[in-house]
């Protein structure tokens, strides 16, 4: 069976109204193959509802979402196309991990042995016959990923997969998702852990109050929102340095305790200008742009805007 080895997720004007709120409001974005896309937003931004609509579990009020051009509910073999990890509690408490996976294999016509293969992939082989209720949150997340990998899908959708994982587990997950994207798969990961996303994602989609705020490569989104680099500089001659920097067309804000905040240049440039002007420096710190600040800038005042 031949199939294209990549598939985009395309979200087109997706909207979900509940009785008293718009959980998702006219949301459009695209998720590209071969990249990890971070789906970011404050709690209650509508991330989970959007993902559940993409996966056909929640019916949109209007709009549509397709994966490789096909709606999830129209796929004859969705498990082979899309793997999803939605919540860490999605198995029967009294059933073993292996049986939980075998049921999915049976329903989708996969051989039972796939259950053991994916358990090995996520490092749960030794607890395959243990009941789900004895699993820690981290083990449940791994089981969720195992279930998502059963059909060797070309698209992966994960809702807050880092929840409940220890730092080692988070590194394991990051390496796994990066490797899967490197194979050409499409990976969409929702999270509110921004630092983690900065290390993991190639692209970001940022939403708040159900609406799209920004979409694009991480570097681009950082550049747009955090603007140019900022530098903190401390000197016994603040007035002289401020004048020098303003001559060089840099923006300078002085604080009463002698600290200058400079934007539009990096630490090397500010240091050089101070040196040539003969100004003594006591501190020179570059503040690199980061996703966290970009995110806070973007979502400021919007989280509670329903």
């Amino acid at each position, binding site marked *: 069976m031949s199939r294209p080895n990549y598939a985009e997720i395309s979200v087109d004007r997706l909207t979900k109204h509940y009785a008293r709120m718009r959980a998702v409001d006219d949301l459009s974005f695209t998720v590209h193959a071969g990249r990890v896309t971070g789906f970011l937003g404050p709690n209650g931004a509508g991330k989970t509802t959007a993902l559940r609509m993409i996966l056909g579990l929640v019916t949109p009020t209007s709009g549509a979402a397709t994966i490789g051009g096909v709606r999830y509910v129209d796929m004859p073999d969705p498990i082979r196309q899309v793997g999803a990890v939605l*919540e860490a*509690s999605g198995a029967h408490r009294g059933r073993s991990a292996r049986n939980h996976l075998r049921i999915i294999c*049976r329903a989708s016509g996969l051989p039972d042995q796939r259950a053991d293969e994916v358990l090995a992939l996520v490092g749960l082989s030794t607890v395959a016959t243990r009941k789900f209720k004895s699993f820690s949150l981290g083990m449940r997340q791994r089981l969720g990923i195992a279930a998502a990998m059963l059909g060797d899908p070309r698209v992966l959708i994960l809702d807050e997969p880092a929840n409940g994982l220890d730092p080692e587990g988070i590194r394991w997950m990051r390496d796994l998702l990066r490797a899967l994207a490197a194979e050409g798969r499409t990976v969409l990961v929702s999270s509110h852990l921004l630092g983690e996303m900065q290390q993991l994602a190639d692209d970001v989609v940022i939403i708040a109050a159900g609406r799209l705020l920004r979409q694009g490569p991480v570097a681009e989104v950082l550049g747009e929102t955090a603007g140019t680099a900022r530098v903190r500089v401390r000197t016994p001659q603040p007035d002289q340095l401020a004048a020098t920097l303003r001559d060089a067309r840099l923006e300078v804000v002085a604080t009463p305790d002698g600290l200058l905040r400079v934007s539009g240049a990096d630490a090397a440039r500010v240091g050089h200008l101070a040196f040539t002007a003969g100004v003594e420096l006591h501190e020179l710190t570059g503040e690199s742009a980061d996703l966290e600040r970009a995110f806070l800038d973007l979502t400021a005042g919007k989280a509670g805007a329903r």
Partner: protein
Amino acid sequence: MNLVSAELLKLRTTSLWWIFALLLVPLYGVALAFNWLAARAIGALGPEAENISFSSFSVERIVGNLYTSGQFGGVLLVLLLSAILVTNEFFHLTATATFLTTPRRELVILAKMVVSVLIAVLVWLLTTALNLVLAPVALTSTVGDTHLGEPYVWQAIGLNLLVHVLWALVGVGCGVLIRSQIGATITLTVLYVVGTQILTAVFALLANLVDDSILRMRIIIPTLASDLLVSGPQSADDLPRWVGAAVLLAYAALAGALGTLITRQRDIA
């Protein structure tokens, strides 16, 4: 077929099935003992017994009951287990995994109906096998004849299978409609165990208030329909057997269709 296999695996891989199997044992035991005692009472009357025919105390009725011992409990357990096949998915939050694997949700409901019918057949096979061994023993020791040659015995056994299957379908349909596990279990148990008394009283009251013809409508009470199917018309006014089957089938179809429509629309969150 894949989905039926998956549903059977779901059933086999939790402790639910053997809890129900254990529950069946005392229910069957009590039913058998009761019918055995009834046979003894008839045996004590001697040959005149053949001439007696109150509504529920004829030789035919008691022999039939003995060969279908365990029907009350068996059908109750089949009904509840069928409903739980559905409600379990929501109670244990497995609906997400199930509907991600099979986005065409009506196929999942259909597979559950097939499995519920298989459960019904299995329970019927089990109790019938026991009855075919124990009922002849009971009958020879009381009335002195197994009655195995009588066609009505075999008709009763066949109808016993039919009620098991029909109630299984009603169970799945109600499980889809009443998503709450506890709600479905309690509703169905009450309906099945004391529904006849309560609903007959309601119909009597309505007939009193409005018009006597309403009383004829009481056949739409599922347990009464089931009784009609099993026992046949008891008096000249009673409707024929097949009406009972039709009513049960209508319930199963209505609950199943309505429930499936709702399940298709419902947001799984």
